């Protein structure tokens, strides 16, 4: 590293555009696996504990502890059992999504007005129908708020998995940037990661709007 080198080297970005694109795609894939896995676990758990309320405390307590454990420590504890690689990375990433998804899921279902639930029962809905056609749709905004936080948080955490050979943009930030004291790679990796988080968040807002058309109609009517 010489002093004449500019702080930000655009030529490096251009020369490595393919690599950066690939790292971004890998980042997206790692995030998607974690969030989809998290939802697949959190959703049924939410439905169960929202009914059996004495389970709420222990479940949120346990996922809260998982959430508090630093990612590097969680990787380290998992490695002897699940090896260095995708499995370890995803177990850790998924476990970080659970607290947010479950808490918002329960809060969303709790927020459905009892009158509405009663009306559905009165109309002859079975428990299952009521859940899928009334309660879950009405809980969607709060559940989506949790999903957005989980996605944005995961995008940030994926970078750390570079330390165990995964990482997406984390590879650019840590391996190419920090380890070699190369500013351009650090800034490029962080910039792309933030961009990804912002775009994912916007995308989820649009998806939520598409899934809850009644919310918009109500907003227009009032």
């Amino acid at each position, binding site marked *: 590293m010489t002093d004449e080198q500019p*702080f930000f080297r655009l030529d490096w970005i251009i020369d490595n555009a393919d690599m950066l694109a690939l790292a971004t795609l890998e980042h997206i894939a790692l995030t998607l696996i974690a969030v989809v896995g998290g939802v697949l676990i959190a959703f049924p758990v939410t439905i169960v504990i929202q009914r059996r309320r004495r389970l709420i405390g222990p479940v*949120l*307590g346990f*996922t*809260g*502890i998982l*959430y*508090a*454990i*630093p*990612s*590097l*420590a*969680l*990787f*380290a*504890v998992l*490695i*002897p*059992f699940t090896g260095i690689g995708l499995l370890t990375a995803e177990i850790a990433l998924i476990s970080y999504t659970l*607290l*947010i998804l479950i*808490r*918002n899921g*329960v*809060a969303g279902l*709790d927020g459905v007005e009892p009158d509405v639930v009663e009306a559905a029962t009165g109309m002859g809905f079975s428990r299952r129908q009521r859940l899928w056609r009334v309660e879950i749709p009405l809980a969607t905004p709060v559940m989506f*708020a*949790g999903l957005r*936080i989980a996605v*944005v*948080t995961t*995008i*940030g*955490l*994926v*970078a*750390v998995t*570079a*330390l*165990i050979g995964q990482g997406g943009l*984390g590879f650019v*930030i*840590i391996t190419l*940037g*920090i*380890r070699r*004291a190369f*500013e351009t790679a*650090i*800034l490029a*990796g*962080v910039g792309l*990661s*933030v961009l990804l*988080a*912002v775009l994912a*968040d916007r995308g989820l807002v649009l998806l939520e709007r598409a899934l809850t058309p009644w919310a918009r109609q109500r907003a227009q009517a009032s």
Partner: protein
Amino acid sequence: MEIVGEVFAWLTDPANWTGSDGIPTRMQEHVVLSAISLLIGLAIALPVGLAIGHTGRGAGAVVAIANVGRAVPSVGILGIAFTLTLPLVAALDLRNIGTPAALIALIALAIPPIVVNAYTGIRDVDADTVEAARGMGMSERQVLRRVEWPLALPVVLAGVRTASVQVIATATLGAILSTGGLGRYIVDGFARQDYPMMVGGALLVMILTLTSEGLFAVGQRRAVSPGLTSGQAHHLPEPAPGFGL
């Protein structure tokens, strides 16, 4: 399952409890770096959050800080702090190249949750209560200090708790910038494939995190103003990290 015994052996080996690479030293480095960062972050973030919460001016800035804090990966903040401190480290010819960067990154990470919670805590104080305090002739300063602050304290502490979890976690990551602290065991253990050391270090980090969580949980409970403890409705906590325990 051999690893369990090996980790236990590593943790109980007296050789690992002495010297500059010993567990007490590493633990102390970790705690001191985290505590200093948290205190500086608190000194910056608390007045800002309280002022915005009290006056209601600048609420947009709080949202912006919260979003940035969430979207920028902690490794990214470490990296950016590293690029900013590189010239300084070179100019001063510092031996420990990572510590200034880690300190800046940890302070930056501590700020958003504290600002957000201080703001929310003050803002959510019942407007009638504040009005009553003003009606009693309290000055704005007195309203903030004697009415809003005690009522907001549990929420403020929740923010400090979130910040503390983040700071301890990222102080661990600081090891990739060759700082001290417990992260050294994990990063070095990984590099040398010394799994007992790596897992032992990870367990120590977990103990530190959970101790901090536990202390804050107790503090939060004690901080609830005595007038509020009776008849409080049970409700789910806000979707902010650090509430779970």
